[in-house]
């Protein structure tokens, strides 16, 4: 059969949705306990929300699904949400009191074109945004929350990778480029080309040495950052960013949360201004986040420090599927082989009562094979119930609904 599914699209089957809901539940339960409130933004947004320098890189913009709406004669385009954070920042500006800290979370899909069509063009993520606080404790809060959610999901030994967009921006500033060149260099770096940063400065210059000292070694504790901070003649911008980075790393040290420092691990988002973190499990990225203090003013709101993260549904659900499949719930099949009104009524009543007791109950009037399910066969004339447990091959007869429920294991 020819598949009629759109290229790059994906059907979520029952086993996928089981994993999806499991992750969603663990995520929202943890968020709620930490005082975060759930929000949802529309699938359609205006393109201009995402075009300013400092939002999405041109490379990401070139993969956005944009089109004219049915009333789009002005030529202004709308997009399928290409990012989770920017719409939430817009929601915050338009709807929430801006003198208070907002703790928000959401489960959403984001859309980006992917050329081969072998990867998903629609991806789901569990996002968290903390708006209104510039404290290092907030950055730390997000890392701890993300770790707790992953723990709830049974995913241990997650590797936390830290970097700092403020440090990166300060290094770029030291190259003394004009603002156009700066943006272009940043775009290249965020698309993964870190080589560009080492090549931007003159060879063997002071600045190039500084850049390589920041890029090459990977730190394992806040001491590494202290070392960098203690270097002679450090530009003041860089010092400010490093102080912030050190403070957060120090907190994580105190909380015995281990991490790896790799300045080159920031990817994709122009809006990050401070600490960035990636969550890796066995080498694959399962989540990322960071601080984005300029985003809210960029899209028309007041100065608002903010940070957030997202966990990626797809790799997480691949990790969890095998273990979720094993714990299938207790299901019972109620079979009714005679089509008399009494038997049908009795079957529905039995099923209703079983469901009330917490059993997943499937009704069958078709005489299908039941496989390994426990079953209750409703018999007519005289009304009675045959309870079969295929695992033990025990058959018992009950004379009432109450007795039948007791036999399958439901207390009365």
């Amino acid at each position, binding site marked *: 059969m*020819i598949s009629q599914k759109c290229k790059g699209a994906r059907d979520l089957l029952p086993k996928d949705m089981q994993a999806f809901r499991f992750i969603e539940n663990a995520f929202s339960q943890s968020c709620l306990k930490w005082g975060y409130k759930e929000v949802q933004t529309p699938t359609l947004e205006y393109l*201009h929300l995402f*075009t*300013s*320098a400092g939002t999405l890189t*041109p490379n990401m*913009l*070139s993969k956005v699904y*944009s089109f*004219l709406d*049915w*009333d*789009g*004669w*002005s*030529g*202004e*385009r709308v997009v399928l949400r290409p990012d989770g954070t920017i719409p939430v920042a817009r929601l915050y500006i338009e709807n929430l009191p801006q003198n208070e800290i907002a703790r928000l979370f959401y489960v959403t899909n984001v859309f980006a074109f992917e*050329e081969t069509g072998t990867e998903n063009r629609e991806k789901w993520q569990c996002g968290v945004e903390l708006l209104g606080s510039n404290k290092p404790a907030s950055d730390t809060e997000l890392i701890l929350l993300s770790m707790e959610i992953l723990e709830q999901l049974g995913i241990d030994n997650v590797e936390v990778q830290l970097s700092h967009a403020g440090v990166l921006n300060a290094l770029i500033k030291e190259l003394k480029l004009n603002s156009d060149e700066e*943006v272009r260099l940043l775009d290249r770096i965020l698309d993964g080309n870190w080589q560009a940063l080492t090549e931007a400065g003159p060879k063997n210059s002071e600045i190039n040495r500084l850049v390589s000292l920041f890029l090459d070694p990977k730190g394992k504790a806040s001491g590494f950052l202290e070392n960098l901070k203690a270097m002679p003649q450090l530009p003041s911008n860089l010092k400010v960013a490093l102080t912030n980075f050190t403070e957060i790393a120090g907190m994580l040290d105190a909380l015995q949360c281990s991490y790896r420092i790799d300045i080159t691990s920031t990817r994709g988002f122009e809006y990050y201004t401070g600490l960035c973190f990636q969550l890796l499990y066995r080498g694959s990225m399962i989540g990322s986040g960071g601080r984005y203090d300029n985003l809210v003013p960029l899209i028309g709101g007041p100065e608002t420090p903010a940070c957030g993260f997202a966990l990626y549904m797809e790799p997480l659900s691949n990790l969890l599927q095998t273990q979720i499949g094993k714990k299938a719930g207790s299901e019972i099949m109620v079979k009714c082989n005679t089509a008399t009104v009494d038997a049908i009524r009795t079957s529905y009543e039995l099923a209703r009562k079983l469901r009330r007791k917490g059993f997943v109950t499937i009704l069958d009037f078709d005489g299908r094979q039941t496989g390994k399910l426990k079953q209750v066969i409703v018999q007519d004339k005289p009304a009675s119930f045959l309870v079969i447990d295929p695992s033990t091959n025990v058959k018992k007869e009950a004379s009432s609904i109450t007795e039948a429920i007791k036999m399958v294991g439901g207390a009365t």
Partner: protein
Amino acid sequence: MSTADNFDSIRLALPKGRLLSSTACLLSQAQLEFEDYTPGTRAYRLKSNRLPNLSAKIFQEKDIPVQVAVGNYDLGICSQDWIEELLAKYPSSNVLKVADLAYGKGNLYLAASRYGNISSLRTLAAAQNMLRIVTEYPNLAELAALALRLKRFSIFPVWGAAEAYPPENADLALTWAKDESELKSQSLIPLKTLIPSTAFLIANRDSWQAKNVSRIMNYLSRALEMPDKPWLKIGTQSRKSSNDYHPSTNKDKVWLALPDGHQQPPAAELLSRAGLHILGYSEDNLSRRPVFEEDWLMAKVIRPQDMPLQVANGNFDLAITGKDWLLDHVSRFPASPVAELSDLGFGQVRIVAVVPEQFPAADMDEFKRAHDFRAVPIRVASEYINMADKYLRDKRVGQYKLIPTWGASEAFLPEDADLLIENTQTGRTLAKHNLKILDTIMKSTACLIGNKYSLGIPSKKKRIDSLMATFRRAVPDN
């Protein structure tokens, strides 16, 4: 040495218009000339005299990269700007740029009006308001706007006359010109040269990988390596209309868009019958901005295809266009504030669904049924892309692909499309090309269209009403 029979059959897409004379000259120097490939030709399908396996078809330049990319043609010749326009939206298109043919030199410029308040790219980046970009190259325009990090922009795709829009109706024009001085003669100043463009020989990637086109390449290369290249000396006379800007601050003025091209003579005749005197709107003296004697009535000359969108955006209060283009517009934007105000009688055409004569169907239902057995989508070529889309949806045609064309659509059947949605006056041209009509979608005449919001302004409404009355009296049989 193999004989001609051993060579694969090769299909070549050749341009109409600006590049035709130079291309014909190059082909004849390469001894690959086609008899009917001359300016003003009415033929579409050409056979090579020299190589029996070589055939060619004439297209609007803009259609050529698409036709080559989808594999309908193995080779094509067109200007680089149209190749880039395709690649801007579809970077993985199956097009290979084989050779720069060096003629038809020009540039794609991002330009602003000399009379506006944009003078450099720096001003653009600082702009907080919506920047309107008018262009025949919407894909390149979007790419350029994103690359320039314009915060808020909208793109008006137009069929032509982009230079006429700034400064009042657009902030920027992305347009082709031979050089800066040609651009400046249109009252535009270049902000950025996006792409230098010349004619290119392009190939379909699969054809290039699998077929042997070397014979044609050898002929062409021999010509391209000649010391004397007469095709480079053929001047392309660009007959552009003047475009002088008259600043106006009066808000009560009524803006009227007048058609260029085929519709210009009957529209001018109508104005004169209505007793409206206008300067600069005759075939021998055509300005983009003709001047009415009535000082409250302002005019601009643009393509009729572009008028409904421009009226919807409030750039014009009124326009003289065809009902066909109005229907195409409202098919795309059902809630558009554009309405037909008055039938003007001239320019009668029918919009029809057309198939090849020999296709075994007498109406659309039979056509659909005949196609239901084939698992491939129906290829539908049309200039009226939105009208065609709505028509096919309403007719519940299951799988179809729309192929936008820019004129000369009848050439697409039967090789490059299965169905054509096209206008016809008498049906004679269609019959001549062995095509038959399955259905009439609408009857169209020229009409006066207007913006509903303009009619809501009392001072404007009075003037528009009186103008409508004048037009009605001038329409014969009315």
